[in-house]
Structures are given as C-alpha cells and as structure tokens.
C-alpha cells in the first residue's frame, strides 16, 4: 500500500489503512518524539495523540506538501505540548513539596522491547534545536524542510541547527562527563 492509498483509505475511515499508516510512520514519529522529549512513555503518548489527530484532520492535509513533513509538524507540536505540561507539573510539584508516586502501567513495558533513550548530551539543547538536529541527522532534512516543521523561516532553522551542532561538538571535544551517562 503506497502513501496515497493509505491516505485515501484513512479518509474513507478504513481501519486497515489507519493500521498501515501507523505501521509505516509510527516508528518515525516515535523516534522524533523520543529525541525531543527524552522519555519513552511520554513519547508513546505523543505518538498516539499525533496519529489520532492525523486521523481526525486528514481532510485538512494539503496534497501539495509532503505528507511526512505534515505528520512530523503535528508530532513536533504535540511534543512541545507534552514538554509544557511536564514543566508545569514539575513547577507545581516542586512548590507543593510532595513526591509524586510512580505508577506503573501493566502491559506497557516489555523488557524485551528495545527502549533506547537519547544521549544526555541532548539536554543542553532547546526542543527546537533537538528537533532540528534530529530531522537533519536522521531524515536528511534541509534547513527549508526543518523550517516547515518548526513553523519558522529557513534562516532561523539554519541557526537552530548550527547552534545544536556547535554545542554538542563543543561538549564532545571537552570530554564532558555526561558522555559516560550517554
């Protein structure tokens, strides 16, 4: 099933096409979310929200644009929402001075599943810089492609990417202690 068939099927509400879309692009969306957020469970939540939004709003997709870029734009925005939510809750819990209980979700975690987390080095980057670096390195995106996902100008995207590459390289060259954790 090619991309156009999947899109047409999803527009027609076919469950098989929805499944094909998740199986075709799921790992891509999950990897971007994981690189931006840095937490597997939150990244899976973002991945789910992204696809549900795609299924609901697929009729708004402009066929002139790349579907992958449109999908990654949604994933990026959902990731930013998740980071904002986490930051707000972290501020709240710091002020309230209580330890939130860690609640396991049975069935979610499978020890056999690979659950790699991005390097700690990425924490020095802003979410926009992490996204720019991820799209450039993993997907081969240019500054113009990245600018579509980040909803900014190509020159701004180029600066985000440049800063990301420079910061991480400087840390690597300085033999930063975080390397051992990465």
């Amino acid at each position: 099933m090619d991309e156009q068939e999947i899109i047409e099927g999803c527009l027609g509400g076919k469950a098989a096409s929805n499944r094909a879309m998740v199986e075709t692009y799921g790992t891509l969306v999950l990897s971007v979310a994981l690189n931006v957020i840095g937490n597997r469970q939150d990244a899976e939540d973002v991945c789910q929200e992204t696809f549900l939004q795609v299924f609901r709003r697929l009729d708004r997709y402009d066929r002139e644009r790349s579907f992958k870029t449109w999908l990654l734009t949604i994933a990026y925005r959902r990731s930013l929402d998740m980071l904002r939510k986490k930051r707000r809750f972290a501020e709240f819990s710091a002020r309230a001075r209580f330890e939130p209980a860690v609640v396991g979700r049975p069935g979610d975690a499978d020890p056999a599943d690979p659950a790699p987390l991005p390097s700690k080095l990425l924490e020095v980057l802003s979410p926009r810089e992490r996204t720019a670096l991820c799209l450039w390195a993993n997907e081969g995106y240019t500054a113009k492609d990245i600018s579509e996902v980040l909803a900014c100008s190509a020159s701004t995207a180029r600066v985000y990417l440049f800063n990301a590459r420079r910061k991480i390289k400087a840390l690597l060259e300085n033999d930063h202690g975080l390397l051992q954790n990465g």
Partner: protein
Amino acid sequence: MDFCRTVERLYAALPLRPFRDWLIRIHMDRCPRCQERLLSREEARSLLVRSDQTGDAAALWRRISEEAGRLAPAPKAKGNGGRLAWQWAAVSALAAVVALAGLWLLRETAGPGFDARAIVPADRFEIAYVKVGGEPAQTFVYHPQGTDTVFVWAQKTP
C-alpha cells in the same frame, strides 16, 4: 584562522538570527575549519534515537487502535439487514421509553410546592476565583485520576 575567530566573535556578539544566518551562509557553511568544529551527521546519528531503534510498529498500532477504532466506521454487515432493523427498532423503543420517563420525572418535580432548597448540592469541587496579593491569580487545579484529592496551585499573574 583569524577570520574564523572574527566571524565567531561577530556571531556571539549579535544574537540576531538573520545576521547569524548570513554569517553561517557566507562563511561557516563553506569553511573547512569551521565545519570541523561542528557535529557531523554521523556523530549526531550516534547520539539520537533512529526510527529502526524504537521497536515494533505493530505494538504502537495495538496501543492506538482502541482509540482509532472509535473514529473508524463500523464494518458494514452483509445479509443481516433484518436483524439490524430489529436492533434499531429495539434501541429506538428503549430511547423513547427513557425519554418519556425523563419527561414524567421532570413534570413531577416541576409541580407546585416544589422546594428547590431540598435538593442536595452535587459533591463537586468549585472555585470561583483566587487572588494573590489582592490581584487575580493564575490558578491550576489538578485532580489525580482515581482519587478524591484536588490540588490547587495559585500564582501571581506575571
């Protein structure tokens, strides 16, 4: 080398994105020395999670399908039109009974002599407004699922 340092100083001195972009395009993207001080694509890939490292996409679908199933239309049944019609009739009849019962209850309670104060207010948390330092404050209400606990966090509006 000196030119590279000058460009770097200019880059650091003027945090204007168009200016920085211009410096990148006219020098840093082309200069081998400056490129050596940037992370290569291969180095970046070694730090990032790639899509082939995230696991099985089918597992993702299992997670999403429950929610997605609500969006997808139910498959059309073939050859059971009669049974479907009966189901629709039964559901419609039940809905009519529920609606009539509701109307009857409303009619009873709306009659003369009804005392509105006798109704026990619902057990719910309400907050009209919160002030901090005499000013309306930003208020966040957190209700952990499955508990009766409600956290209210108010802070000064920036």
